[in-house]
């Protein structure tokens, strides 16, 4: 069993695993456990959101009214498409079509980039209108009805910011996968990294699916 060769079948198996399947199962279990920690970390923010939304529903409604649901919807659509292309890239690798997989991975990256660009437009418009977290909220510009509107924007920027950071990390990882795919390192016998990053990408997508209605549509 060679540990350094990049050839398909038998390659890439670390010394402490019995075979490729053993390594694949272990890796996948590790990735899922890591996803659990991601969900729990966002979970803290969701719990905080739920508590303060129930305490100050009108303040949250005022905050949401300043967000553009069209931008949010567009971003939701972009991420769903990217999840599809991500899943397709694994499908292609399993069938040995690494060129198609390569294209799908790049489409995924581009979708991530579109998401971030739209997000950047939204952020800059919030900055312009002084809609900022906590004491940074510009009261003169916003004419806020609720004194603690800064709290809503605290949640908005924390949740979307942490999510955006995950999108950026995901894009970086997918570019790395695309390069390795081009080098022919993945195939039907070995695609664990693609599978792992794929799971990560779907979870990041899923978190957005919850963020979108909570932040944009509630109220």
């Amino acid at each position, binding site marked *: 069993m060679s540990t350094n060769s990049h050839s398909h079948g038998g390659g890439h198996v670390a010394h402490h695993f019995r075979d490729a399947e053993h390594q694949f199962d272990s890796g996948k279990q*590790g990735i899922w456990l890591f996803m659990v*920690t991601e969900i729990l970390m966002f979970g*803290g923010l969701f719990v905080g959101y739920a508590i303060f939304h129930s305490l100050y529903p009108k303040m949250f409604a005022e905050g949401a009214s300043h967000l553009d649901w069209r931008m949010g919807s567009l971003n939701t659509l972009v991420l769903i498409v990217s999840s599809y292309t991500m899943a397709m890239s694994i499908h292609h690798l399993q069938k040995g079509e690494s060129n198609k997989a390569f294209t799908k991975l790049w489409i995924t990256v581009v979708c991530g980039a579109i998401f971030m660009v739209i997000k950047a437009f939204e952020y800059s418009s919030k900055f312009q209108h002084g809609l900022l977290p*906590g004491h940074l909220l510009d009261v003169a510009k916003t004419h806020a009805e609720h004194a603690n509107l800064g709290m809503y924007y605290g949640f908005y920027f924390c949740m979307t910011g942490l999510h955006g950071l995950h999108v950026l990390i995901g894009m970086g990882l997918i570019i790395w996968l695309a390069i390795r795919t081009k080098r022919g390192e993945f195939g039907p016998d070995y695609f664990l990294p693609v599978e792992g990053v794929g799971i990560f990408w779907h979870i990041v997508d899923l978190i957005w699916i919850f963020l979108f209605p909570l932040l944009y549509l509630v109220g």
Partner: protein
Amino acid sequence: MASTTHNPDVNYLNEFKGIGSWFTSLDHKRIGLLYMVSIFFFFLLGGIFALLIRLELFSPGAQFLTPDQYNQVMTYHGAIMVFMVIVPGIPAILGNFFLPLQIGAKDVAFPRLNLASWYVFMTGALIAMSTLFLGKVDTGWTFYTPYSIKTGTAATIMVLAAFVMGMSSILTGLNFIVTTHKLRAPGMTMHRIPLFCWALYSTAILQVLATPVLAITLLLIAVERATGVGIFDPALGGDPVLFQHFFWFYSHPAVYIMILPAMGVVSEVIAAFSRKTIFGYTAIAYSSLGIAAVSFFVWGHHMFVSGQSEIAGVVFSFLTMLVGVPTAIKMFNWLATLYKGNISFESPMLFALGFLFLFAIGGVTGIMLAVLATDVHFHDTYFVVAHFHYVMVGGTLMAVMGGIYYWIPKMFGRMYNESLARLTFIFIFIGFNVTFFPQFVLGAMGMPRRYFDYIPAYESLNKISTMGSWLIGIGFFLSLYVIISAIRSGAKASANPWGAKTLEWQTSSPPPHFNFETEPVVTAGPYEYK
């Protein structure tokens, strides 16, 4: 039978040479030793802060610290001991070294991630230490709001350091769960893994499920300090008790992250030195999982006097007492193992028996604190300080010492000096009781915790307590000497000096790079003494 003949003088310690081979090693045994050196250093640091606290409290009034300095010393003692010593302690040192050996694996599931988690841990630790030069922290290790938001000290850096160290803890836990599930040797069923592995497995579940909540809580503190979002600030419509809920949702399970591995060590040592099959293997194994499960539903007992609703208080009080059940199951099974065993009193066993004694006191006083009516009186007094030191020091640190003495022959292939090691036990055990038992009395008399001063009525007991801390100090310094001299010049150890039955003793001491000459095949349980 093996294609390459193994040279018995080549082992994981000397197969690769040079300092660089340590910092890039993916070998779980070497990574365990990296953790050992770093955690010993942090323990020394946290211990010095502890001695300073006791010195300041030797007499009423200011001795040599200002009140502000006292708050800082107390914060660093707590933060270092919790985040850098006891939480990582047993899993990262002994767990890393012995989990794969005990289940017959060549390594942990993700060796590279394992090394990475040491680097992440050290990064977090260095960030935490940097605050010593960047404006010191005085919030206590709990970072309670609103003070932690308003204090002018380097609290932001400190919470980010704890965040980074938490990440390391998560990665270690994740690695151990997958290792336990996927890398067991042929025949090593879940019901044949040693109880230390069950304890590590339960701990790992807590690390993975609880730490992310701490992570987001700490990030929120940083955000709060930067922008004043007000989630935890009552002046802005926020709720400081919410912080306490978030914080203890992690930090109460974290208490079990600290104690469960210690219980695992005690199970190993008691079976080995009673030369007897452990009594109630299944009960001990599942009570670890039971403690892990219940630990997620008891966090509210930290808020009995924080303005939590009375119904919540009653429910949390009941749930907290529930923890006593799986804990008592363990205690009685250990006692039953001792019964009619062929007991000998080498130092690991002394520490394990010390654990039983001190942990029983720590546990029973825990029940007293779980009862609402008594807790209202004891809350925030030295009674609580004594209680958790009986569990964390009397429990976990006793097990750390016992575990290290127990496994030194395997880790380094050398024996330690038995009579000196017994002497360390005497110093630590007596010193510990002299230090902390008076604090139960002080607490019951009403002496509040965290203050830098006290009324003269508390003086004599405080003096006794401080003198006890010197005994503990001597005990641990002596232990350091015993450990170092064992590594440098101890007598050569055989593969199995204690006659123990678990798998790590079936390979040579110290083990070869890949742990076993040939993959072990397991046909019986871990403690089949005849």
